[in-house]
């Protein structure tokens, strides 16, 4: 059976969710592997959300926000800029592949870019295989 990755998308309401919406209304195609949750700002995305996604069976997490400088709340996405690299450093220590967690800036006019990011990420995770929390150790 082919492995179909489950990807959680967490998108900011003002840019990226609108970008994904534009992607749909302009009939661009992207894989159905992503499940999108809308948040008010990428700065709202706590590291816990990403870990919880993996705990609940996601194979990858995509976070999209406004380009730096474009945040609706002036500097919400700078909080993400600070938080994300530290989280990535910790996740790599825990053996979670780089491709599984991704941060991208998608504006409301970048529907096509959103489609290409989702397609690329789906393919990368398909190659990696499913995420298993207990890989390399039982009794987890």
């Amino acid at each position, binding site marked *: 059976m082919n492995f179909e990755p489950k990807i959680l998308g967490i998108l900011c309401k003002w840019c990226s969710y609108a970008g994904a919406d534009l992607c749909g209304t302009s009939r661009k195609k992207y894989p159905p592997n992503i499940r999108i949750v809308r948040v008010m700002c990428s700065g709202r995305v706590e*590291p*816990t959300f990403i*870990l919880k996604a993996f*705990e609940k069976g996601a194979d990858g997490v995509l976070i999209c926000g406004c380009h730096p400088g474009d945040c609706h709340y002036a500097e919400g996405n700078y909080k993400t800029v600070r938080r994300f*690299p*530290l989280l990535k*450093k*910790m996740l790599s220590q825990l*053996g979670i592949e780089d491709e599984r967690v991704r941060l991208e800036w998608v504006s409301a006019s970048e529907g096509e870019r959103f489609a290409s990011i989702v397609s690329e990420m789906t393919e990368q995770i398909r190659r990696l295989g499913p995420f298993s929390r207990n*890989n390399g150790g039982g009794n987890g």
Partner: protein
Amino acid sequence: MAKLKVALYWAASCGGCEIAQLEIGEKILKLAEAADIVFWPVAIDVKYKDIEAVPDQSIDACLFNGGIRNSEQEHMANLLRKKSKIMIAYGACAYEGGIPGLANMFNRQTIFDRVYSETPSTDNNDKIVPQTNYQVPEGELTLPEFYDTVRTLRQTVDVDYIIPGCPPEEKTTWLALEALIEGKLPPKGSVITHNVKAVCDECPRKRDVKKVKKFYRTFEIISDPEICLLEQGLLCAGIATRGGCGAPCPQTNMPCTGCYGPVEGVIDQGANFLSAVASVIESNDPEEIQRIIDDIHDPVGTFYRYSLPDSLLRRARIK
């Protein structure tokens, strides 16, 4: 009133919890008035078979410290749960896995390789590693099975109360024991401490604006004794740690390491602490942020010092 029956047990722990239990000092006489200790491997000679022989639910409370590292500890957790009316996870290891839980960065194979062959002082040409059973002329010898993953007590059996800390402070221990003796225990599932939200609430250091350009390890700077340690770039976990301890560490110039566990309502202490640390970085430039983060050498060991087995991911994935 009939005397209470209390059992105390240690699993994957260091023995510090036993010292902490004795730290109640002369109050131990009050405990002895109200309770008989029926099982305490560190201090009294009662065998496992004696505990197996007592009726189910005949022990009033069991204070269990240490995480679950091997099959013996799992067996004893199940046995004591069956025999006890109240099961109390005592200390950070039983609560969240504790320091031994950091071994969840590895598995049995990698731990055995390191301990029994790779360490420079080890001379083991025959590659002898512990086995669960071994035949000798006199019969079969057995050892408990060493698991890949350290689990918390709550991941193993039903737990009624938690006393946090590495080790729990004397006042926290007594708060719980007093409630037990007087029959005034809080609702099931409670973490028993003095009701303080975070370590910061009890810390006397001055707090201003948290803006950090560089993080330090404790040996790299001489910290100011008056100002918040996190503001000075030391990774103090007080901000993400349940209070009730009285903040003894920051008062002696040591950053909090997070032994009282997450603040109420938080499910993953490490992620919470990570988020707080990232938020104090004073920069909007990705390259500079990366340089600042490079000073945090061991994020898992820092953020999940006591709580890796209890975290959402529980362990590292090993290729």
